Structures are given as structure tokens and as C-alpha cells.
């Protein structure tokens, strides 16, 4: 098989990118999409040209490293399949394919088809964990988990964090990812103690990272290689309502805006809040000994 690829080439985050066309020949239908790109890169290297940079790790659809848009569809368009598991027989011989990285303000391009998905890590850091004592492992079955809850948690935990949901969303929203991570922990008994704090923190962090807002198009669900259902977004919304409705002995904490590297180039509302924070910081430094004194 022969393909004409139009690939986004961008040397670094600061430089402008452009599309470059390549011919790939002698592709067999059994090759995966990434193997086809390997063949292209072998060819480019032999011609002393820089290879096309793309992210990959396990190549068996479970690590969440790979992913880009093929002809405008994240992961290529075969339902429930990552791009590494997509075989070239999915396309027709002679097809022209456009390869484009995920595009979102929260996912800056690092090089060619690779984007920086640290924003997802920071959403997880905001609450996607359980503060468990790390002593000896508890006895199996010490905590009973209803089958239904275990199934829900398992479905949600299938999310590999590839970012296709953000890429496909017309609003560049990270709701499907965040809802999967929240549903995973909030469905289990072990996740209950921090449930409200987790939901509020992760949801607030999603906005801090400058993702867009969900308008229920369903594009995310359609391209998700792990078939995370839209239903989890509804569950996350319910959990947020629960967090706001419940009475808490101490107020819940929203992650600070200012830890963000991306905050300075955000839209004006954030500019304003960052400016306020900077003034506050100056204030803090002026009277720093005070907090320790007021501790008791």
C-alpha cells in the first residue's frame, strides 16, 4: 500500500509549525499506524532529514502515550482503538492522510505530533488519589465493595489519559478525562472520606488549566479508545452538587491558580486573579512571621 501523509512539523513549542507532505511506500495492511510512521522515519533518517516525532510506549493500547488526529479524527476513527492499535488495512491504498497533534491551549505542542499533557497530571495531583496509610496491606475482603460499584470504578479506571477527549471536543474540554478519574475513586468505599474535596479540587483545577466547558456534543465518547461513557460526566456533576450541598466542618479548599505555569497567558479574568495574588504575595512577604505566631 502507498499513502500520502500531510504531517504537522513543528521543531519546538516556540517555533511556528507547518504541514509537510511525504510519500510512504511498501506499507503492508498488517502494519500498525505507528509502524508505518517508523518506516517513514527510517526513510527520513536515511535521507538525513529529522524524523517525525510522535509519542509511543507500549504499542498495545494501554499506556495512553500515543495519539494524534488522522484526517480530523482523534486516533483515526476506529471505535475503541488507540492509534498504535490501528492497522493500516483500516485505510484504502493511496489515501491521503493528514496528521495533526492534539490542539488545546492546555496541551502546547512540544514537537511535531507530541503535545505536553502535564495539565492532566496536575488535575490528578489536585485530588485523584486516596490518602491511605502505607503500612501492611489490609486483609483481602476487609472492605466489601458492591459488585455494581466495582464495575463502575473499573470502567472509569480504564481511562488511559491519552487526551483524545480534549482533542476531539469542540470546546477542548477535559470533562470526560476528569469525570473518569473522579468516578473511579468516588465509586469505591476507599474513596469516600475525601470524596467532596476530591471532586471540588479536580473540577476547579480543570478550569485553572484553561480547558473549555462541556456542551454535551459527545465527540469525546466517540473517539475514546477506552470507551469511557458520557454518563460519567453526569456522575461528576452530581458529585460536585453533592460537594457544594453537604455541610463541611472546615471549608473545602480550591487549588490555587498561581501554581500554574500557563496562568500568565490566560484570558483576562485569570490575569486579574493572578495580579491580585501577586499583590497578596507581596503582602505576605512583608508580614511573614505572623502566621506562625497565630498558630496557637
Amino acid at each position, binding site marked *: 500500500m502507498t499513502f500520502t501523509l500531510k504531517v504537522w512539523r513543528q521543531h519546538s513549542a516556540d517555533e511556528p509549525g507547518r*504541514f509537510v507532505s511525504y510519500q510512504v511506500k511498501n506499507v503492508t495492511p498488517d502494519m500498525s499506524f505507528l509502524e508505518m510512521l517508523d518506516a517513514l522515519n527510517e526513510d527520513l533518517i536515511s535521507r538525513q532529514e529529522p524524523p517525525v516525532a510522535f509519542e509511543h510506549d507500549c504499542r498495545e493500547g494501554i499506556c495512553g502515550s500515543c495519539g494524534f*488526529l488522522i*484526517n480530523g*479524527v482523534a486516533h483515526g*476513527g476506529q471505535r475503541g482503538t488507540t492509534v498504535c492499535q490501528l492497522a493500516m488495512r483500516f485505510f484504502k491504498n493511496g489515501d491521503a492522510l*493528514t496528521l*495533526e497533534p492534539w*490542539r*488545546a*491551549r*492546555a496541551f502546547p505542542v512540544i514537537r511535531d505530533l507530541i503535545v505536553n499533557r502535564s495539565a492532566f497530571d496536575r488535575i490528578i495531583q489536585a*485530588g485523584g488519589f486516596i*490518602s491511605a496509610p502505607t503500612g501492611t496491606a489490609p486483609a483481602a475482603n476487609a472492605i466489601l465493595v458492591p459488585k455494581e460499584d466495582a464495575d463502575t470504578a473499573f470502567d472509569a479506571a480504564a481511562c488511559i489519559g491519552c487526551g483524545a477527549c480534549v482533542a*476531539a471536543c*469542540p*470546546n*477542548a*474540554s477535559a470533562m470526560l478525562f476528569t469525570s473518569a478519574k473522579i468516578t473511579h475513586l468516588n465509586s469505591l468505599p476507599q474513596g469516600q472520606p*475525601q470524596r467532596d*474535596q476530591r471532586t*471540588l479540587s479536580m*473540577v*476547579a483545577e480543570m*478550569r485553572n488549566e*484553561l*480547558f*473549555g*466547558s*462541556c*456542551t*454535551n456534543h*459527545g*465527540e469525546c*465518547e*466517540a*473517539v475514546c479508545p477506552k470507551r469511557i*461513557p*458520557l*454518563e460519567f460526566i*453526569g456522575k*461528576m*456533576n*452530581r458529585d*460536585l*452538587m453533592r460537594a*457544594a450541598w453537604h455541610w463541611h466542618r472546615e*471549608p*473545602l*479548599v*480550591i487549588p*490555587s491558580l498561581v501554581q500554574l505555569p500557563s496562568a500568565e497567558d*490566560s*484570558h483576562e479574568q485569570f490575569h486579574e486573579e493572578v495580579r491580585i495574588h501577586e499583590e*497578596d*504575595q507581596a*503582602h*505576605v512577604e512583608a508580614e511573614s512571621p*505572623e*502566621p506562625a505566631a*497565630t498558630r496557637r
Partner: protein
Amino acid sequence: MASNTNSISVHSTANVARQRVAVSHGALAFWHTMIGKKVIMAVTGVVLVGFVVAHMLGNLKIFSGPDEINAYSRFLREVGSPELAYGQLLWIVRTVLLICVALHITAAVQLSRMSWAARPVKYDVKRNVETTFAARMMRWGGVLVVAFIIFHLLHLTLGAIGFRPGQFTHLAVYLNVTAAFKVWPVALFYIVAMGALCLHLDHGIWSMLQTLGWNTARNEKQLKIASRAIAVVVFLGFSSVPVSVWAGWLH
């Protein structure tokens, strides 16, 4: 997490205080999140859909003749008496609706701006696989519906535009409506606006159920069908009046 809460609570700095203000008022923190705004849009949407359906059913009384519809318009003002004075309940309902519209639009504008800012570099090639025309038209269709509501209030509620002087009589609903829709551009605008409303409801009603967490993988198809059915019924119900006047069935 525990240590995090601790360190926040012991600092008495302005920054931390600002953070705690945002969180200690649950409603404010809720509004601050994107999902909170979405939920507000959904809840106000429920109220507005209820109003639209009731309004549509009220309109159908015009087919029972001038007496029925005129009596109905008086009933809307007299209902609740003697506890409430003439027109009081109507104004309560109007206030609630106005608040809902204001919240719905404010949230929509804020969320739209966030979403537009979230993808500064557009795709060269982007193919949508799941979304519908109705879903993509939510924002601009919503703007058209707002324009229509303003026109409609000035037109058939106040009689300020679209009538010759002295042609509009307060509470003479039947005569007003038949006179108004004899002007074909007005009738056409009403029907087009109801088309926009139909699209808005087609995605909106299902979307509201999804946002509030009632949509599941199992019932998604049924909910989408129900949403579309309500939207189409609302469209047909509203459009039947200008069409009938235009066709000369009401005179």
C-alpha cells in the same frame, strides 16, 4: 490532604482569606466552577422549558375561538385572587423567568468565552463524528431566540411594533394575533425563530438531563428521542398559529 487543609487554615494572609471566601460560601464556589455554571444552565433550562410548553398549550386555545383565548388572557391576570391582586401572580412568574433567562445567558456567555479561549490554534482538518446540527447551533440559535423574545415582547405583549396606530388592543388577544400574522414577514420570522427554538430544545432538553446526571448509557437513546419529540411538538404547536392565520383558517 490533611496537612494541606491545615496549612491553609493557619495562614491569615489576604490570599488565603480570598481563597477561603471562595470556598466557604458553597454557592459562590459552585458558581466559580464550570460545572456549577452548567448546572445552573440546566436548572434554569428546566424552568424555561416548562414555560415554553405551558405557553404553547395556552396558544392553542386560539383554535377554540376568540372568547376562549381572551378569557384565558384575563385568567392569567386574575388567577390567585382574592389572595393576590390583579396581575400579581403574572408579574411573579415574569420575574422568575427573567432571573432564569439572565442566569442562563450569563452562564452561557461565560462558558462560551472559556471554551473559545481553550483552543487558540484551530485544526486544519477536523471531522466531527458524533455531534448534531442542533448541538452546534446552541450558541447562535440561542442568540436568535433572544432576539426573537425581545421582538415578541415589543410586538404581541406591548403592541409597540408591527401594528398600525390604534390597531393593537390590550387583552383583545384574538384580534391582535390575527392582525399581526396577516403581515407575512412577521409570520415568517415567528416560524423561523420557532425553528431555532426547536433546535435549541432538541439538544437542550437531553443536554439538561445529561448535565444533571440522569443520562446513562442504557437510556441515552430514549432520552434523546423524548427530547426531540418535545422540541418538535413545541415547534408545531407554536407554528400552527401563524400558519393558520396566514392560510386564512383563523380570521
